[in-house]
């Protein structure tokens, strides 16, 4: 219930910030919601569509186009393995396979218990320190499989 109130407040704030009927506000609005809530739901899309006087499909189409928007939230631990050129050459593929095996989830998915999600991302811009992974935003440079197992082992322990 409280969650709904927070959401409603967020939407109200956003709607006063971005004028009604101006579709230029669509992506920034979705970005702020994504940032706050971690994912977009049908109700949110409908509310945004109404505010901007757009068909819901249009809003959904935009959200589905960009990588940033999610319709399901990431896991409590979101693991990103960089697969940019630098990291690719540095062996990110075997790193990714290792994580997949270790967590028993495929890249792009979230574990059933919602604890872990795994994603291969284009480039984190840290090519000089390849391969890089990031767990909930914290980066681990020049990592190898062994270290990775250790790190994930640690977070597996402190599951939330």
């Amino acid at each position, binding site marked *: 219930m409280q969650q709904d109130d927070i959401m409603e407040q967020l939407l109200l704030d956003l709607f006063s910030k971005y004028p009604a009927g*101006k*579709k*230029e*506000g*669509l*992506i*920034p609005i*979705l*970005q702020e919601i994504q940032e706050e809530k971690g994912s977009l739901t049908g109700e949110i899309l409908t509310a945004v569509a109404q505010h*901007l006087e757009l068909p819901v499909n249009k809003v959904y*189409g*935009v959200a589905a*186009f*960009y*990588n*940033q*928007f999610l319709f399901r939230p990431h896991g409590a631990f979101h693991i990103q393995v960089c*697969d*940019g*050129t*630098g990291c*690719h*050459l540095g062996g990110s593929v075997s790193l990714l396979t290792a994580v997949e095996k270790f967590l028993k989830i495929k890249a792009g998915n979230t574990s059933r218990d919602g604890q872990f999600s795994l994603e291969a991302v*284009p*480039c*984190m*811009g*840290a*090519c*000089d*320190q*390849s391969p*890089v992974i990031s767990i909930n935003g914290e*980066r681990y*440079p020049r990592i190898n499989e062994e270290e990775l197992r250790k790190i994930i082992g640690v977070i597996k322990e402190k599951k939330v």
Partner: protein
Amino acid sequence: MTGSGTPKLTEFLVEKVVKNYSGIYDKSTAELLSRVRREKLSQPAIFIGMGSCGITAGADKTLKAVETYLTENKIKADIIKVGCMGLCSAEPLLDVQLPGKTRLSFANATAGKVDDLLNSVFHHTLPHDNILGQYRFHGHEEWPGITSLEELPFFGLQYRMVLKNTGIISPEDIHDYLARGGYKSLFKTVLNYTPEKVCEIVEQSELRGRAGGGYLTGRKWLVALETGSDQKYLICNADESDPGAYMDRTLLEGDPHRVIEGIAIAAYAIGAKKAYIYLRSDYKRAIVILRDAIRQARECGFLGENIFGSGFNLTVQISQGAGAFVCGEETALIASLEGGRGIPREKPPFPAEKGLLGRPTVVNNIETLANVPAILENGPAWFKAIGTKTSKGTKVICISGKGVRTGVVEVPMGTRLIDIVNTLAGGIKNGKQLKAVLLGGPSGVFVPPQDLETEIGFDTLQEIGAGIGIGGMVLLDEETCMVSLSKYFMEFLQKESCGKCIPCREGTKRMLEILEGITRRPREESSHETLERFKGVVQLENLAEVIRDTSLCGLGQNAPGPVLSSLKWFREEYEEHIFDRRCAAGVCHDLRTFFIDVDLCNGCNICQRKCPENAIIGTVKMPHFIIENKCTGCGICFDSCKFNAIYFK
């Protein structure tokens, strides 16, 4: 950086420096300037490279260690967070400058090393390791036996104009930029030149767009200026999403005001009252720095209403891309700013005539705009003197891959590729041989060693079928599988294709599938299948041609680049994959053939049980064998063997 007395300092700098055409200062101004520039110090200064690359390498931990060290030892010193000076492979970078002495730079200064390093420096001795060099400066006492930074091979070839301040000044404090002549060009421009004149100056300088077609920037501005409209827009394109290139971020995190000044001048030249900076939303730090820089510039009156009393108004807004590579294309970027899917549209009409919300819009790459203040400051003739006949100025290049050194550099146009590889990057890591250089990002082309004599420039690169793109340069060593790498880029591009036009949407997918076919071992071997796969190569060339010919935007038109160039220079690798089913580099896992070392195998039987193809035979406690014909190369046995008895060729 808002200490007490700051507004006064700002006012002073604006009056005495920004509005001073001559560049000749009275004594008190000169004195103050040298303090702001940290040439004269009253207490030690410690500089930490806090670009994203630095932070990834642990610069924030270094910072904490420095702070702890200073408190514990009761030493008073300024800590200045600077951007990345380009040598990313040496991060975290830590510089220490004692009053009266040169600024000393340390490489790989991780938190654990801080105590030792600082201890030595504060005791006026030199530590044994980690010394990168020193910044030579007239009047500073030099540290004995330490190379000057500009004498290092990494810096020797560089001509730092766009990156002049990056890594040296604090990006968080506008005074650092002002004290180095910042916003002078803007002042000069809006008070002395008409917009037409600015376009003319920039056209005379022959500055060409730093990403994409290399169109003359001044001419593009003039088109927008001359197109009548109630509103015009300037967009600074910093949406770099090439995997393996991050010069835009380096610039924004290191010297944001240079970009803002360039934007302001460009907006004035085209008559725009509103400018957007479009950058990746995951560049969190760059956004924070940029947002703050815009605020400071506005507070100083460099943005906003009636700039310098000239009547010119400008608001600058940050727009965050939502994660789509195709939005680097200008019309897609505009579509995205308008709140739609980032889909490119047909040109003409060009955005300079009809862009954002149907109004004339100039989309300039961030590096192009960062060149502008210097051009206005020093004049077009000065700028034209740098570079080659057809390509003027410098180019920022991001070196990644297998080089000894990687990072961001700026070289004059006309620099030979081979010099960048050998001198700046210091050759290939671990004594390996250079196989090729990938120029221009995921849709770039592979340049073989024999073509590396080519000079950097729009036309020279075009002659060898390449292009500089936004300036990504990936060094590849002999252990690279070109087929697999081409597949990797094709996979990236087909994922990032917007899906609008058939050749790009369907064509890249087909090319990827063909490449996957080549790098996969067929389940049953028959000559027919080899033929099919061979046909794939022919189809690749055919498809590449049509995709290049008919795609709507640059993403599709250039998408076949890696495949075509690798086919051209490394065709034998494709043939090896197809006919011999072998990947010499061992990268294409599916083509591996596994063997069991009879000396190491103790017959534990695990591999036999795990093999999904029943390709392993043997009795318990006796060495096992792999039936080559049955093995699909999945590698499960390799992973499951606890005795390292399985190896592959």
